[in-house]
């Protein structure tokens, strides 16, 4: 039985648009489990990113609760937390990867990663720098780590953003279309990195509309008109049996996901 670490209860999100109310999330109920690679899919404008921001506390839900099972404070509703507490959660418990990378433009890749690490008071400055260096090395960015974001490719920027998101070993890593702005080669590299992180126990919640990316997840949720309308459980990506054979080939996995999506009129 997996541990539930995040739950959405009757989450609603409404925006005002020229005096009219637009209900992006109508009534979302869902759980996120520890160690899962959860993928949220849906058509364009279905509210995927809005849901992700509501779950991660980047934005506040209009109504409902988002319960996070914190190690230190037990269950807390992040929709009611004060700004300072949320900043603390973002530093230690949640990591976030944006579609547009969003690296701080006048900091080098190394600094982008280490500044986030510096916010975590549990680690010393030296430990943070060491870990940032290791992470960037692992992401294949050792040679460009002292470059400014504008001097590296989109894939390198996104890998740096992943390093930044995991520098404080968050309990949940949120990713909003992390490959949306990348070419095929970079997409594969980024997805491999996320898969590797998940295989090492990192809980991930990713929003995507790319089936190739969705295949990396072990739990797929489908969002339509602001509500979860479908769920698909898969084996872990690349999981092997005792003999070392893949439990499910990529093709078979793709077919299963396609079929599921077709059943949802995608």
């Amino acid at each position, binding site marked *: 039985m997996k541990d539930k670490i995040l739950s959405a209860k009757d989450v609603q999100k409404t925006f005002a648009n020229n005096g009219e109310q637009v209900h992006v999330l109508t009534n979302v109920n869902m759980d996120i489990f520890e160690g899962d690679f959860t993928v949220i899919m849906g058509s364009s404008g279905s509210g995927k990113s809005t849901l992700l921001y509501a779950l991660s506390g980047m934005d506040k839900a209009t109504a409902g609760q988002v319960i996070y099972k914190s190690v230190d404070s037990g269950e807390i509703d992040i929709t009611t937390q004060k700004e300072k507490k949320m900043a603390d959660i973002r530093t230690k418990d949640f990591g976030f990867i944006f579609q547009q990378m969003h690296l701080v433009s*006048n900091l080098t890749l190394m600094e982008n990663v280490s500044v986030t690490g510096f916010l975590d008071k549990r680690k010393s400055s030296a430990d943070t720098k060491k870990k940032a260096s290791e992470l960037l090395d692992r992401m294949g960015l050792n040679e460009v780590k002292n470059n400014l974001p504008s001097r590296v490719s989109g894939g390198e920027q996104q890998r740096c953003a992943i390093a930044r998101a995991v520098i404080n070993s968050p309990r949940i890593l949120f990713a*909003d279309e992390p490959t949306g702005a990348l070419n095929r080669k970079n997409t594969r590299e980024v997805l491999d990195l996320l898969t590797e992180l998940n295989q090492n126990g990192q809980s991930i919640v990713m929003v995507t509309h790319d089936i190739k990316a969705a295949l990396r997840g072990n739990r797929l949720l489908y969002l339509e008109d602001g509500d979860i309308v479908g769920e698909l459980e898969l084996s872990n990506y690349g999981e092997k049996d005792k003999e070392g054979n893949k439990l499910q080939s990529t093709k078979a996995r793709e077919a299963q996901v396609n079929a599921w999506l077709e059943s949802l009129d995608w």
Partner: protein
Amino acid sequence: MEIWTLVKAEIRNRKGVFIGFGILTTLIVVSILTMLGVSNNCNASIDRAFETIDKGVMLASYGYDKFSPELEKKLEENEMVDHIDINDMVVGINVKCNDYEDGNGYYCLKYFDSLPVYNKEENGFINFREGKNNTLVKKEIDKSDYELKKGEIYIPYGCKNEFKCKAGDKIKIDFHMESREFTIRGFVQEPYMGSSIIGIKTVFLSDEDYDYLYDCIKSNIKTEDDYWSLGNIVYIYPSEKADKSSDKFLRKLNLETKVNDIAENVMTRETAQHYTGIFINIIMAVIIGFAILLTAIFLIVAGHNISTEMEIDYTNLGILKAEGFTNTAIRKVYLIEYLLVQLAGIIVGFILSIPCERWLSKIFFGMTAVLPLKKIPVLEGIMITVILFAVTGIYIFIFSGKVTKTTPVKAITKGKNDYYFISRLNAPITKKGLGFTLGLRQITSAPKRYISIFIVSTILIYMVVSVELMSNYIESRNALTSMGEPFLDIEFSYQNSDASWSVEDIENIIKKHTEIDGRCYKSHNYVSINGENVMCVTKAYPEELSSTYKGHEVRYDNEIVITEQVANLMDIKIGDTVKLGRGKVTEEYIVSGIFQTMNDTGKAISVSLDGLSRLKEDPSKKYNINQLGMYGVVLKDSSVAEEIVNEVKDKYGDEINIQSNNYEKVMDNITDSFYMAADASKYFIYILTFIFAFVTVAMVFSKTFVQERTDIGINRAIGFSVGRIRRQFAMRFMIIGLISAVFGMVLSRLYSGQMLELVFSMFGVPHMELDYTFISFIRPVIIFTVFYLIFGFVASRKVKKVSARELIKE
């Protein structure tokens, strides 16, 4: 139409910045127009006051029997003189009212009809009303409404502040052989000596009181020493042949008649105007100088703002060009938006300057004692508008020239990267002091963005350090001595001419308690130097507590020292021979040095006691030390001053005026006013500096905020709290404050002295030895830096509005 659409959009999008510019313009316009209004109205009201009393252009006072028929004849026959008006006067001394004392001489005259009496509300006169062209016209009212009755007195409005008195209060004046108490009936507008800055005053008595006093005193005049108690006041009216300048008229007239040499005191219309308006003119010079500095700051910020605005809007600029906007049209947009904002600032400034002018005029009214006019400086307002428009227009046109240097494609494709990374400076970022190091990085990675605030801050630091240096200077004992106003631990003077004590007796008592570090025994008289009327400070020990800073102090009886003001006015220098005149005697003296004094705002000379004796009709009868007007000593141990005073009082009782001074209450009237003006300038500059600093910080933040909005969102997403981001901004501005402080301090070390000497020369202090101590620099720097930290924090409250949601792309 398309230009107006863009202008409206620009103003809407950057309203924070434009509001800032509007406020800066308003501050500039309010400062200049207020001071111009005050100054114009003050000068016009002094002119009106002279026209109203119709007492010529010169007032000369003479001791009893000094105004001889011979002099009268000379004056009446002189072609420069139209006619003269001779009045008897009674001289009062030791004036006391409401526990305040004034040691100056008071000339008592009979009240005359052309003297306006202030009404109860002090916004007009009982016996005069406003006429056409800002004139005052005599009212057709019963004389009993303002005519003095027995026991009543009219005093100039300038005495009101000095004595903190009102109509109905009692005022006591000592006359020769008797003291009289009068009831203040009201206050009059007397333009010659009514201002609070002028020590000697003319006061007005009822005919009955006057005649009684005159007869009594006259019958009691026994010796030449009693001649001070009566005299004449002569008003001199110029003919058409006289010089238009009353000062030059006096100089020429004195050469031909000795009108000045024989007089105790002469006040020309020009001199009265100079003294009456001196503080207004000094403060106006300081404030207008500062306003010009503010205009320069305004232009620096505007120019920089346009550059960065273009950089931020690089893509939009490209789009506009691609759509077909010409360079001229785009530049017009910049020009119009700034001029519109400036116009709004000017209008608001103009409106605000009206109550400010009224308020300031009311404050200065206590000093000038002349009811200010209420003319609004419309012409000046128009001129300022035209000048500001022209300067800003040219400036913006030049700065917007960058528009022509880019093509549409270049602008669209390059976007912000071009401007964002303009520096390769990499200040390190550390976990310890993360806010500070991140703030420093923001500055080093985009220094161009902070150039304007840096220049502005440097100028402001320079101003603040300068006023701090000024404040420290005027509060130090050495500075007071160098300004010719030494701080004296004990001051004493004769109460009457037949006192039983001598200066030597007092010195002996003092020496029993402590040593005397310096003596300032002096008298103030008026003499002519090459025909010009100046104050003469006669000193018994010129070498002690000397304020001579060039050449040497007076050593022989044929030497004098002069102020720089007199040197410039008379075009004389050290080593020159000059003619001093007093009474019927004229003697030659050699200028031995340049000294400083605030007496008569620096229009003064100084001689030794023997030097003054040479101007006696019988120079063999030299003045002795006991004939001086005031005595003061600096003690080695000032803590015994009170003890000494008590002993002297016990011994000599009412025969002596003696007091000990503590550091806070040393100044006489002139220095009080001097301190007031210096303090007013100091606080004005501090206040304007901080308003300007805040507006500039807010404007720079506003721009930075637009540029860094995404970064702020990212920071919030990775766990920075709002408070932490705001602290980072605050740190950034504090760092700018610190860097500016270094440059401001260097500037100040180089130029503050010269600037302050320029301002202080108006008070008669053209030479200052500033004390450049560490504390005089560090205090304003700390205040300024802390304020920048606070301003940065306050201005960055907008950060609250940016959440990680900024980064959402649905």
